């Protein structure tokens, strides 16, 4: 079953798009990540122009995040106060990121720098998360006691952060942090998101767990809360400035990913927080490994050809 996409100017298979939406929605509901890392390359692979693939993925992410957020909200798993600070920083960061992107694009050779930074960054995060997850799971299951390093660098860094001014209490997460920490953090992530086009949740979730030290239960919902605003902003700006959003493609993905998100949230509650964190770590690690390998394997097409709008 084919349908012609008016903006992408190419027909696609409806079933294929629905399945893709379902899968990305499921991941969004379960892990609180957008799923753009999966949807965008796939859309490009089936012939959707890259710019349209990125913008339309953002449109779909709104729906799966709303769907997943509401399900989490009902269970009281969203720290809205924290979410608002993250949104503020996210807006500033992504706006900055877009300007940085334009500047770097002119100088050329930037994509490779970003790729390497991304691989190193995500690779180390996922490995730390994975080790941490395995330790906690084995500790609980087999009563193994892992020796804790006293005063590790990370702990010292976190202690230092605790001394920052403007401490605010977040009742939902039961933590007190300086307002500057979530804002600076989300500005940084916003910049990365704008540069990469993907990966907001990927970096946000580990940051929430390890730097903000929020409880695992509220992390997924709060991440989804934040993603909705960032994705809405991005969809709107892309539609207005570049006419890059294909509403037909978006609609197909929106419907299926909203359903997927509901299924994902329900599966998420059946899995305990530690295993879930390890699953997410594994997922990030796999994506990272794929990116790492693609840096060194010869591309199937040596030349990239795209038609320009003007």
């Amino acid at each position: 079953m084919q349908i012609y996409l008016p903006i992408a100017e190419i027909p696609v298979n409806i079933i294929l798009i629905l399945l893709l939406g379902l899968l990305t929605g499921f991941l969004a509901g379960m892990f609180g990540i957008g799923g753009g890392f999966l949807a965008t390359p796939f859309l490009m692979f089936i012939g959707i122009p890259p710019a349209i693939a990125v913008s339309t993925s953002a449109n779909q992410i709104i729906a799966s995040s709303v769907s997943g957020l509401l399900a989490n909200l009902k269970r009281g798993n969203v720290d809205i106060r924290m979410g608002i600070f993250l949104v503020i920083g996210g807006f500033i960061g992504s706006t900055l990121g877009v300007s940085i992107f334009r500047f770097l694009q002119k100088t050329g050779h930037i994509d490779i720098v970003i790729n390497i930074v991304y691989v190193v960054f995500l690779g180390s995060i996922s490995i730390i998360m994975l080790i941490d997850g395995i330790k906690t799971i084995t500790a609980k299951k087999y009563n193994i006691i892992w020796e804790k390093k006293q005063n590790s660098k990370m702990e010292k860094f976190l202690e230092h952060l605790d001394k920052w001014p403007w401490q605010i209490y977040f009742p939902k997460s039961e933590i007190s942090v300086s307002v500057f920490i979530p804002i600076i953090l989300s500005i940084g992530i916003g910049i990365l998101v704008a540069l990469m086009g993907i990966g907001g949740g990927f970096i946000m979730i580990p940051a929430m767990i390890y730097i903000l030290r929020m409880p695992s239960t509220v992390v997924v919902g709060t991440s989804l809360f934040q993603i909705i605003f960032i994705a809405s902003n991005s969809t709107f700006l892309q539609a207005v400035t570049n006419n890059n959003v294909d509403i037909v493609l978006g609609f197909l993905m929106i419907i299926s990913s909203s359903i997927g998100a509901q299924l994902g949230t329900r599966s998420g509650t059946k899995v305990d927080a530690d295993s879930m964190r390890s699953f997410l770590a594994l997922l990030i690690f796999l994506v990272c490994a794929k990116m790492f390998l693609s840096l060194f394997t010869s591309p199937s097409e040596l030349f990239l050809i795209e038609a320009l709008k003007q």
Partner: protein
Amino acid sequence: MIKNSTLFILLFLTLFAANQKSEARPIISGISTNEINIDTKFNGTEILLFGAKGDAGDILIAVRGPKKNFLITKKEKFLGIWHNGNRVKLKNSYSYYSFFSNSGDKILENDIAKDLELGGKNLKFYVSGNEESRKNKNEFEMEFVSNLEQQKLYSINGNVIDFLDESLFKVILKFPKNIARGIYNVEIYLLDDNNLVSFQTIPIYVNQVGFSAQILDFAYQEPFLYGLLSVIIALVVGWLANYLFARFVGK
């Protein structure tokens, strides 16, 4: 469209016969339709071109789609890592080009074939980029043509014209699913040695119609509302899914 071809051929022959009585024309031809309407079900199409030649000579047919600018990036290896290397811009290149002839390659070496950009070898490209990429201009051009050939947008080699007798001929023009909107020109040339005896050009209008066209117009004419609507649809559907699941599926 091709289903109506029998009728079309009959009509054409009648016209051709009527025409021959009044005056002998070197070539006369027609196509089964002047329009390609892209609707939501569009998945590529074919158009029948039919014609007759009255004089001696070679028939060459070229179909050209709207001109566009293209960006070509070459992947290069540095310290074992693949990255985007040289990049060139091809200005005003045909987004679609197909060529038909029975005369072999020799005729394409004529000045006239070169001037008229007949055949893949005679296509002209305007390349802009840095010095090094301009030096490798040919490499980029060849890649461009072979890439568009893969997408079935270019069709240059081995397309023959189907002659039914000495003068009557037909050709099936294929338009893939990913054609650009705009005006396409079907050009039929009659060449005798190095002389252009006659030529005819027939336009084909490629447009989106119906629902598809309405969305396209909406996106470009009211981008603000379009963007807003995209966001609102996503918010509403996300909410609706949650509501329906909570109501009918439960936790």
